């Protein structure tokens, strides 16, 4: 295992300490339990948006804390959901009296921990709403699974909900909008290499030099199936086709196209994929009105890519464009 690391058990704590000194104008770090809140939290009268999950997906979620996006992020250990007390404390720290939206990726652990935190928050009189993200089309038969995983659409939900909250929308509105974004977003990913969880000390799985994992999640777990490595264009088709067919995305619609790096894949390659994904979307009659390219929801140093397509409406685009000031996404301010 080759990492810039001290003790594996200190990794998340030390990274949070690094964020605290790197971005003092943006956020504050709470050590025990561990969470990040925007520097001016709680914002009186504003709905707060909170997310969290295992670490190892950076910049998600801590890199999205700040004005116009998340009020708080709760990082668990690497690939491990945060705990109810952590989520509860963060919820209390950002509640400005208008309630708190929990953006939760659909993993059993995340769902249960957030559920317990929400129950506890309710007992304290804090209103919460949960937006569950489950956009991964690789998980086909959700009857026989814990449902679809939450992947790339999470970033879009957080941005759009964050902007709506900033604009003064109500708890119910922000949550409804978040659910609408989730319903209109679809994702899928492939991995070219595994990643190594620091505690485990060795790669989560092994891949031959000409193999790839298709339908990968973001936790270093194997994908739905193993396949022969293909060209970038062919891989892009293998991801776009199931995405497009699933919603389905119909000709004439406006979309946001998000090509996400899983960590170890150079930006150069992401743009190669973006080019082909854009071509495929256009060929289906879609209008790519907004784009995002880069490593935003990662799986440590895994090489690979995921594609997210969101069918947008005017309100989503407006909130997408609204000012945001976080460590990883920033515009208009």
């Amino acid at each position, binding site marked *: 295992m080759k990492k810039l690391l001290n003790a594996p058990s200190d990794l998340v704590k030390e990274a949070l300490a690094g964020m605290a000194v790197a971005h003092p104008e943006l956020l504050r770090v709470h050590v025990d339990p561990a969470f990040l809140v925007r520097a001016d939290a709680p914002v009186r009268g504003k709905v707060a948006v909170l997310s969290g999950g295992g670490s190892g997906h950076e910049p998600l979620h801590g890199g999205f804390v700040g004005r116009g996006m998340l009020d708080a992020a709760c990082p668990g250990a690497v690939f491990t959901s945060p705990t109810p007390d952590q989520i509860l404390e963060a919820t209390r720290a950002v509640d400005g009296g208008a309630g708190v939206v929990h953006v939760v990726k659909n993993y059993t652990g995340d769902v249960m921990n957030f559920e317990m935190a929400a129950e506890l928050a309710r007992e304290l009189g804090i209103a919460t709403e949960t937006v569950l993200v489950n956009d991964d089309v690789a998980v086909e038969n959700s009857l026989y*699974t814990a449902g679809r995983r939450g992947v790339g659409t999470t970033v879009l939900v957080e941005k759009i909900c964050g902007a709506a909250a900033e604009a003064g929308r109500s708890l119910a509105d922000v949550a409804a909008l978040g659910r609408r974004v989730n319903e209109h977003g679809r994702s899928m990913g492939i991995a070219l290499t595994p990643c190594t969880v620091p505690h485990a000390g060795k790669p989560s799985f092994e891949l031959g030099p000409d193999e790839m994992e298709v339908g990968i999640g973001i936790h270093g777990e194997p994908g739905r199936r193993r396949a022969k490595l293909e060209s970038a264009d062919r891989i892009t088709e293998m991801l776009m086709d199931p995405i497009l067919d699933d919603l389905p995305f119909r000709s004439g619609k406006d979309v946001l196209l998000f090509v996400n790096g899983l960590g170890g894949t150079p930006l150069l390659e992401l743009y190669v994929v973006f080019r082909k994904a854009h071509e495929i979307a256009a060929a289906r009659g879609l209008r790519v009105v907004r784009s995002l390219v880069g490593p935003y929801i990662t799986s440590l140093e895994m090489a690979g890519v995921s594609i997210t397509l969101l069918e947008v409406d005017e309100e989503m685009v407006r909130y997408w464009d609204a000012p945001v000031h976080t460590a990883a996404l920033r515009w208009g301010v």
Partner: protein
Amino acid sequence: MGREVLNGDAVVLWLERAAEVIGENEKYLTELDAAIGDSDHGANMARGFTAVRGKLAGQTREDIGAILKTVGMTLLSTVGGASGPLYGTLFLEAAKVAAGKAEIDRAVIQQSLAAGLAGIQKRGKAEPLDKTMVDALGPAIKAFEGAEGVSLAEALARAAEAAHKGAEATIPIVARKGRASYLGERSAGHQDPGATSMWLLLRSLAEVAAE
């Protein structure tokens, strides 16, 4: 030898033993999780039981319910993932049954385990044969109930053995709950990590009862 009731000291002894065993098996549990999950079950459980051990030091031992409640709260706030809320729930539900008791006998132990299982199933919605910790705890409780006319130690040993068999029986199953379910057919052929840690906990309990 062996005990027919467990007092607070025995319960604490069990939890310390469990912490040790989980520590020894951290890599093993992580490897099981690597095959069909995300390589963290060993670290999660080790972190949780290290914290439990720390909490037990300052714990009075008169009220077994209180001990179990501390364990449940500690696991809840340190383990994370899917196993954190589930093991947390197991101990919190057991704590309710054992509340105020200085000793627990066979009947209370049985009720506690059953309450724990019910809590796990309520929280996690898993049915038997979904390839989860339920597949170790469920058979263990059945074996415990069925072990009539034997010592507590023997009954717990049979429960642990049933948990072991249950964990092994998860191998061919295609997972329908938890992270392993995302692998579909590829989850078959691997033993469930949570069922395995459940077995290890029950084995430690049986050992302590036998001493």
